[in-house]
Each structure stands twice: as structure tokens, then as C-alpha cells.
């Protein structure tokens, strides 16, 4: 793996990381035998009275407010005091940068000694790869013995996601809310033009045209009728309103599997039309992190856009900034895209969240399960997500409602609640309606009503991912290459001239199929048959 890294910090760091990975796995190779020997005697050492260390991965988003750090903050102290000390365990948190989660985890997994006892990923193919290569502890029996609260909290349906060949190798986190995307339009622009809110894709197109021609926001040449970025929250809602799901309201789970659907080409053709008529962000192909899009929205140049259901509503977030920057601006949540059947089809999340795994080399599997079980018991999750009753929130009908006047010091202590409470993706209170209510209560009061509307939109006519219950080999093999290629298809077929569309689209699709797409499609179709 001799990448010649000559210039720049990044490449040098990369080379170093690779070199380290190699040396470390070299050592791992030598010591694998002894590690296995010890691993098989996974008795909780804590029970014998010796104090042990449990290492837990935590996402680092670089947003720790002083005086907290990612490894020492209110919640880590809470965990230590409430779980660690009574059980004679030192809980140590191992930060992993959010943006390089998988690459860093790969390196850690290769080193049997440095890897945390609890690790996690969102990507199912990574989980399956680790499981197939024999790198994970089988958690089924441990869960039966030490995780009654955890099992109850997660429920059978969610637990299914952690299985491979009938054995449990991961503990899937539970997702509180499966709604994903909503769209927004500048109500003040509609009012200025005396237009109704668009209800269908066709109407949306006409509205965008009107935005472009009449510039109701008086922003000069900078008007962007539809804000677009090379990011799923922007293109998926559009594409999903064109494609036909393969199995009722379920379809292939991965984003790069969209091109296998009937209607994908029409979606691209629509994008092409929008682009060539100057209706979407010109530089969307450069904007993978959405930073330009956010700027454009907040400066009041964007008429319509789609985003993650909650994204614009945070305190000092996109919506707040737009209203502050542009006087008289007004945003409304709408459900504009319609498919051939007139439905507002859009994707939703699976009911699981993170895949939480215990590496085979870990000697603290029992403690790891105990920790997760502790998290699921009592009101620990509420505490991790919402803080202290009376200081951070008040209970209303059993749901914590965040206090708007909570002091900053109190707000700061739960800044990483979502990342610490790994078994729960969002606030889980049992049924979806209550979850949504609890979630909305976490936002500034002024934005709560519109968030409610957004969630209702996001839940409308959703298409869910199929859970095959087994690894799709081609996903692990070609996934990242195809994801990159999907972006190329979208960008190329959107940005070419309309008369070149057919040729460009066919060419890029051919390439997509040659790069593993064909193999993946075949495997998916076979898996689908087996499912029926």
C-alpha cells in the first residue's frame, strides 16, 4: 500500500495512518492467538472484584463547548458515576471524528489492542464485512443473560437487523422517527406573485419558472428558484418522486441503487431541464457539503428547496438566519413533488439506527452489554438526551419539554446527548407519535409548529428500505465506487445540453453497470425473489 505521499498534511497523515495500520495489524497477526484465548473466557472480570476499563467509541463532531471535552464532559461523568462506579468499571471514551468514521474504525479494528470494546457504524455493509471476517463477538447469548432491559427497549423487529445467518453479531440502535425529508418554499414570494402553493411537480415547475422570470424577492441576478446541492437531502426527494419502488412501499435500501428503478431516467431528465432553464443552483455539483446552499438560502436567494426534516429548525439555524437576514421573508413547508400516481412519494429510514458491535478481541463483552443495558433502563436515556428535570426540561404528560430559559451551562451539558445515547437514534418513548412530540419539544418554540408540518410531510407516502436480512456481497464490494458513480450520473446528465441528454445518460449508465452495477442489480433481484 505504498501511496507516494509527497505534499501536504493530508497525504502525509494518510500515509502515516496506512503505515500505522500495517504495523499495527502486523502486531495483531502475531498476537491473535493469545487474544483469542483470552477472549473465549469472557467472564466479567469486574465480578471478581478487580476494577476494569470499558472503552466506548464516541463520535467527535468538534463541537464541544468549554469547559467540556469530547472525552470528559457532563455526560461522560454521568455515565461514570451512575454506571461505572457502582459496577467497578472505568468507562473510557474513544473519540472518532464523525467525518472519517469508517476509515478510522477500519484502522482500529485491525489493531486488536487499541480497538474500543463498543464500536458502531451506520453502514450495514461494513457491519456484515466485519461479521463475515470473524471480527465480532456473537452477542445473542450475552444479550439474553445480561441485557433484559436492552432487549425490551429495542424490541424484536429492531433486533432482527443485527443478525447474520441467524446469529446476532450487532445490537441495532432503535430509530425514533423514520420520516426523512420535507420541502420548503418562500411564502412571501408566492404572495408577491399571487400564486398558490404548488401541489404537484408540474405546478412546482411553473412556480419555479415564475420565480425566475419575475424575481419576487428582488434579489437581482442572484435568484435561485430551486436550491440544489450534491447531497441526498436535496436530490433524493426529487428522484423518489419519479422512481417506482420494487416491492409495494419498499425498495432497494442503498442510495446508489436508485438507478435500478423504473423512472430514474425521467428524474434525471427533469433535473436536466431544470438546470438548463436556470432553475437550480448552477454550482450544485461542487456543493457536496451543502455549505453554498445554506448560504444562498440564508441570504434569501432561494425560492424552493428540500432538506432533512429537522435541519432548518435549530436555534440560530437556517430558518432563524433567513428570517433575520431578509426582512419580510416567510418560509412554508410544502409537499410539492408528486409521482405518476399523484402520490407524494419519498424515502424513509429503516427502523434501526447504528449497528453497535463488540469486537472479537474485546475482553469486556459482558461489561459492554451491561453498559448498553444500563442505558436502556430507568430514565437514563431521558437524562442523556434531555438533561436534568427542572433545569433542562419540565415533564408534560410524561414527555420532557425543553425549558426555553434554561441557562447555557445546562444546555451545554447535553450537547452530545445524541452521540452518547447510541442505542437510541432520536428520543424514543414507545410509539412514534410520542417520539415526534418529544422531538419537537426539543426545538425553539417559534419553530415548533412548522417542524410539526415538516414531520407530517415527511411521513406522507413514504417508501422504506427492504431489509434483506443478509449481506448483499456486491454492496460491500462496489458500494463506495457506485456511490461516487451515482453522483457522476446525476451531475453529468443534469449539466449536459438537453439534446445531448440521451447520449450522456446512456453512456454514464453503461459505465455504472460496468463498474459493478450489473452484478449488484443481479444480486438484488435474486435476493428480492428469495424474499417473496
Amino acid at each position, binding site marked *: *500500500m*505504498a*501511496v*507516494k*505521499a*509527497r*505534499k*501536504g*498534511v*493530508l*497525504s502525509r497523515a*494518510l500515509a*502515516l495512518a*496506512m*503505515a500505522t495500520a*500495517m*504495523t499495527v*495489524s*502486523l*502486531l*495483531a*497477526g*502475531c498476537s*491473535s492467538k493469545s487474544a483469542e484465548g483470552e477472549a473465549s473466557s469472557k467472564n466479567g472480570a469486574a465480578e471478581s472484584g478487580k476494577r476494569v476499563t470499558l472503552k466506548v467509541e464516541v463520535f467527535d463532531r468538534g463541537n464541544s463547548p468549554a469547559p467540556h471535552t469530547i472525552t470528559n464532559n457532563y455526560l461522560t461523568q454521568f455515565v461514570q458515576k451512575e454506571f461505572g462506579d457502582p459496577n467497578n468499571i472505568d468507562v473510557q471514551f474513544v473519540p472518532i471524528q464523525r467525518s472519517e468514521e*469508517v*476509515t478510522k474504525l*477500519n484502522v482500529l*479494528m*485491525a489493531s*486488536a489492542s487499541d480497538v474500543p470494546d463498543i464500536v458502531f457504524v451506520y453502514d450495514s455493509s*461494513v457491519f456484515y*464485512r466485519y461479521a463475515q*471476517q*470473524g*471480527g465480532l463477538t456473537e452477542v445473542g447469548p450475552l444479550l439474553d443473560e445480561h441485557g433484559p432491559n436492552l432487549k425490551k427497549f429495542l424490541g424484536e423487529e429492531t433486533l432482527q437487523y443485527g443478525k447474520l445467518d441467524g446469529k446476532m453479531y450487532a445490537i441495532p440502535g432503535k430509530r425514533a422517527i423514520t420520516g426523512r425529508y420535507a420541502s420548503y418554499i418562500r411564502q412571501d414570494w408566492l404572495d408577491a406573485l399571487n400564486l398558490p402553493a404548488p401541489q404537484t411537480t408540474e405546478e412546482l415547475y411553473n412556480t419555479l419558472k415564475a420565480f425566475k422570470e419575475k424575481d419576487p424577492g428582488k434579489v437581482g*441576478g442572484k435568484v435561485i428558484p430551486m436550491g440544489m446541492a*450534491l447531497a441526498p437531502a436535496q436530490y433524493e426527494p426529487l428522484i423518489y418522486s419519479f422512481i417506482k419502488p420494487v416491492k409495494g412501499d419498499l425498495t432497494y435500501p442503498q442510495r446508489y441503487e436508485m438507478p435500478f428503478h423504473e423512472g430514474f431516467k425521467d428524474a434525471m431528465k427533469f433535473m436536466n431541464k431544470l438546470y438548463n432553464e436556470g432553475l437550480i*443552483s*448552477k*454550482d450544485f*455539483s*461542487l456543493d*457536496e457539503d451543502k455549505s*453554498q446552499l445554506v448560504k444562498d438560502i440564508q441570504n434569501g436567494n432561494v425560492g424552493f428547496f428540500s432538506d432533512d426534516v429537522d435541519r432548518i429548525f435549530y436555534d440560530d439555524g437556517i430558518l432563524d438566519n433567513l428570517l433575520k437576514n431578509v426582512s419580510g421573508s416567510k418560509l412554508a413547508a410544502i409537499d410539492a413533488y408528486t409521482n405518476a400516481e399523484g402520490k407524494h412519494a419519498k424515502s424513509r429510514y429503516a427502523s434501526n439506527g447504528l449497528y453497535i458491535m463488540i469486537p*472479537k*478481541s474485546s475482553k469486556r463483552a459482558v461489561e459492554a452489554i451491561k453498559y448498553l443495558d444500563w442505558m436502556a433502563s430507568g430514565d437514563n436515556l431521558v437524562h442523556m438526551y434531555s438533561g436534568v428535570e427542572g433545569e433542562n426540561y419540565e415533564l408534560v404528560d410524561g414527555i420532557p419539554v425543553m425549558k426555553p430559559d434554561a441557562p447555557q451551562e445546562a444546555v451545554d451539558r447535553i450537547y452530545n446527548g445524541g452521540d452518547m445515547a447510541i442505542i437510541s437514534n432520536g428520543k424514543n418513548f414507545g410509539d412514534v407519535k410520542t417520539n415526534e412530540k418529544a422531538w419537537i419539544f426539543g426545538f425553539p418554540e417559534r419553530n415548533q409548529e412548522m417542524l410539526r408540518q415538516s414531520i407530517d410531510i415527511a411521513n406522507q407516502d413514504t417508501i422504506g428500505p427492504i431489509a434483506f436480512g443478509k449481506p448483499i456481497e456486491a454492496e*460491500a*464490494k462496489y*458500494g*463506495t*465506487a457506485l456511490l*461516487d458513480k451515482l*453522483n*457522476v450520473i*446525476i*451531475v453529468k446528465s443534469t*449539466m449536459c445540453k438537453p439534446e445531448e441528454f440521451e447520449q450522456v445518460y446512456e453512456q454514464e449508465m453503461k*459505465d455504472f453497470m*460496468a*463498474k459493478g452495477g450489473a452484478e449488484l442489480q443481479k444480486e438484488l433481484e435474486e435476493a428480492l425473489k428469495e424474499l417473496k
Partner: protein
Amino acid sequence: MKGSAYIKRYWQLYALLLLPIVYFLIFRYGPMYGVQIAFKDFNLFQGIAGSEWIGFDAFRQVFAMPDFYVTLRNTFMLNFLDLIVSFPAPILLAIMLFEMRSVWFKKISQTILYIPHFISWVIIGGIVYQLFGNQSGMINNLLMNMGLDPIPFLTEKNPWLLTYLFTGVWQSAGWGTILYLAALTGVNKELFEAAEVDGAGRLKRIWHITLPSIKPTIVTLLILNLGKMISIGFDRPYIIGNVAVREYSDVLSTFVYRVGLESGQYTLATVVGLFQAVVGLVFILGSNYISKKLTGDGIM
């Protein structure tokens, strides 16, 4: 001189040498143990020794991947264009700097020229986007204000090549002058004075004295650069490149990153790395041989 006396006299030099040797042993030779991954079905959890041998299977797999050839072609293309554009730039710059009379102006220009070298590619990438973007880029905003069509510097493959090359020259040309300037300071001043007395103009002096005296440096750097034809830095194509120009900006290093680190297919990534190393070796030996034949100068 006797052995012991020799060591006694020069031990400091050997001590100085120790650090680079240790560096090379740990970071350049140590990792070579991992080269065998290319011939193994590498399992993260079994380690290198525990993984099974698969012979040349992984090589067959890599050579069957269409992406491999595209990235290989791009690597050669970008490096070759870089050689044409970026290689002469520091030579011209060094000669210009050398010819300068005013010492303070020379010092200031040198410093300004060096600065880009110390700016990380991530930051350069940000600057490039701000300057060359279609919608928000400064240059295109100027063009549009003058009623001209914007130039897709970043999203159309041929204009992108220019952007890529230009940023490369901007970043490295100044720093590249150092070696040439060092070579030039060693040139005997009397040569220039004699030539001036004989009535040689400035261009003649550059042609007959300056250039020949840095010829060995040029040849050495050229050989080294040719040896690097198949390897390419990661950050420049990764950061300056984007989805719209993927057919040009995807190179071997980004390919290795994607296949190896992102998808965890270490075996395939190692195969590509080994392939690069072997071809690189052939290139460097070949160019050295040719250079020795043609000019009598080489590096080995």
C-alpha cells in the same frame, strides 16, 4: 587515515545521518512487510500472517476493473502535463530571481513566491472555489458583469485541467526555485564578468553560463520527476477535483483511497500500490539510463 581516527573525526556527520536512516527503516522499509497483502486475501482480524495466500488473484481483479485504467491514464496525463507546465516554471523563475540586482526586492519576491508552498491544499481548494466557481466565483462574476458568458473552470473537463495546472504552478513554482538558486550561487562570478567584458549580452550570458551551470540540477530533478510519473499526490486531485470532472480528476491515489480505506478492500489497494512502485522503479531507472547516455549526467 586510519579507521578509528576517521570515525573520531567525522562521527558527528554519521550521527546526523542516523536520524534519516532510522526514519527510512521505520517508515519506508518497515511497511514493506505489508506488501505481501497484495498476494493474500487480507482479513482485518487475522492480521497479515494469518490471512490466506491467493497468488495473483487480486492482480487479475484489479486489471479487470475499468476504473483502474481510467485512473492510470489520468495519473499519467496529469503528471505529464504537470511536467510540461510546472517543471520549467521554477527554472525560469530562478533565472529571473538570479538576474535581479536589487537585493531587497529579490528577498521580498522570494518570500512571496515561497508562501503558497506552505498553504495546505485544503485551503487552496477553498480559495480556488471562491475564485473560479460558476455562480459565486469572483472571476465569473466579473465576466458576467461585463456581459460575457461564465467559463466553467471547475465543472468542464478541459477548463478544469487549466485550473488544476495553474494552481499547481502557483503552489510549487516558488519553492521549486530553491534548488536552482542554490546551484547558481555556486557559479564562479568571474565567468559572468569575463563574458560581460567579451561583450556578451544578458540573454547570451543566461544561455551560455547560467543554464549550463544548473544543467545537472535540471537533469536530476527531471529524472526524479519522471520516476514520479505513476505516483501522484493525493490531496491536489482530490481537493481540486469534483464530481463533474471525475473522468479527469480520478487518479490512482484517490482510487486507492476509495477502494482501500473507504471500502476496506486492502488487498486491491495494496496491489495498486505495488504496481505503482514497480512501474515507478522502471521509469526512474529508464530515465536515468537515457540521461546518462545522452548527457553523461545521471543520479546513479
